[in-house]
């Protein structure tokens, strides 16, 4: 009985950050993109199942699917392959979302909170199979599209290439 209680008490695999860390106590995403070490927020969001789930909802609500489809691309580049114009690390993705990019990616700074941008970045990472399979959603919220993310092969991300 005691053993069972002990075991159960350690149950949470990850922390669900409801309030996030909205004020940038750490270095803002954009500056972190080109510096090492990795922004400490990356660890909090990468592979965090509630963050990825929330990112999946935001991906639909913020019309990301309208340009990037469900990873296949269209008006915007594909997000499920191994080609990253502005870097495929979670902090680089968050920076692209925040600042916008010259060829048409809108800037979401001021329209999404930092937490929401990191949640989206965590979800985008999962589209190319970068994330642990037990943290991703197994099904789409709408019409089934790509093969389930729990079976997505991990795409090798190119070395940080930053195209102007």
């Amino acid at each position: 009985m005691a053993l069972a209680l002990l075991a159960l008490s350690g149950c949470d695999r990850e922390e669900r950050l409801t309030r996030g860390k909205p004020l940038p106590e750490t270095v803002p995403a954009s500056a972190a993109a080109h510096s090492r070490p990795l922004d400490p927020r990356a660890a909090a969001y990468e592979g965090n199942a509630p963050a990825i789930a929330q990112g999946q909802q935001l991906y639909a609500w913020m019309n990301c699917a309208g340009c990037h489809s469900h990873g296949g691309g269209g008006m915007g580049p594909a997000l499920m392959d191994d080609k990253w114009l502005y870097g495929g690390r979670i902090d680089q993705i968050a920076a692209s979302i925040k600042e916008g990019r010259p060829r048409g990616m809108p800037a979401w700074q001021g329209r999404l909170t930092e937490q929401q941008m990191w949640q989206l970045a965590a979800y985008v990472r999962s589209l190319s199979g970068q994330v642990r399979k037990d943290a991703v959603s197994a099904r789409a919220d709408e019409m089934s599209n790509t093969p389930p993310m729990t079976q997505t092969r991990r795409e090798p991300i190119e070395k940080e290439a930053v195209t102007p």
Partner: protein
Amino acid sequence: MTRLVAIFGLMLWLSGCAGVQNALGGDGSEGARFVDLFTFFTIICTIMYLLIVGALLFALSRRRRAAHTVEGRRHHQTSAVVKPVLVGWLALVVVGLTVLTVASFFTDRSNAADARNPALLVKVTANQWWWDVEYSPGDPSKTVRTANEIHLPVGVPVHVRLNSNDVIHSFWVPNLAGKQDLIPGRTTDTYLLARKVGLYRGQCAEFCGVQHTRMALDITVESKADFQRWYAAQLKPAAAPATPLELAGYRYVTTRECSVCHNISGTPAGGQVAPDLSHFASRRSIAAGTLPMGKGNLYGWVADPQSQKPGSHMPTVGLEPDELHSVVAYLERLK
């Protein structure tokens, strides 16, 4: 006899429960019919129960006959009274069940009759964890969109069409009618006919996620004239900011984080995935019944929604104090 009176009295007392979320309220046609049916069932079943308990007590209280008395054949025969009692009991049960079935049938039929000629169509779409309400009067340019509240004219049959944008919810206004599920990909219906003017509370009745308990509905049943007045006010575009503080709030709300989710008619804020805020300040509560509408609660909600309703989709933006003041001032303008 005294017991019956006591039971009746108890039920009368219970039905007198003034409550905004009272299943025995009977303030809507369907609700009232179910309360009547419930009362009828209770009476019949109580009578049956008392008869059975009475028979049991009687059997327990009878003196035991001496086992060794020999009275001829009658020794192994059952008492002359048992057989007719059993037959009578069987008849009583059959009649009782038939009566209950017939009563139930007539209640359902009356409810269905209500559904035949609805005068108003309200489309309710459930989301996690708020209600999207749209009035569809037939002329598309006269549709009204609001959230987390329904106004109903008294005595008018209303058709409520139910849908869901994510998971299964359940629409339940205890005073007015029974529960009806809202299932994604499927349209369900319920019919309301409010009989008494008043304020009522509805609640999501199907577990739908972490904030299922804070997914309530404010129902206002009012006279036809009041309802028309409310409807006409809802058709108008959102009120324009009147003071410099409100103007600053308008600028923030319509261009920043609020605008990508919320819709305020007549402004650049056109988001469709969160409650419509065009006439937000005229509502009784904030965030689907989480907090009563009021200045303090509004400040608390806008400043940090995640502390009030953790896990809901409204993020804690981290507004600066002057931004917070201006946003709340503008929201209060949206009557």
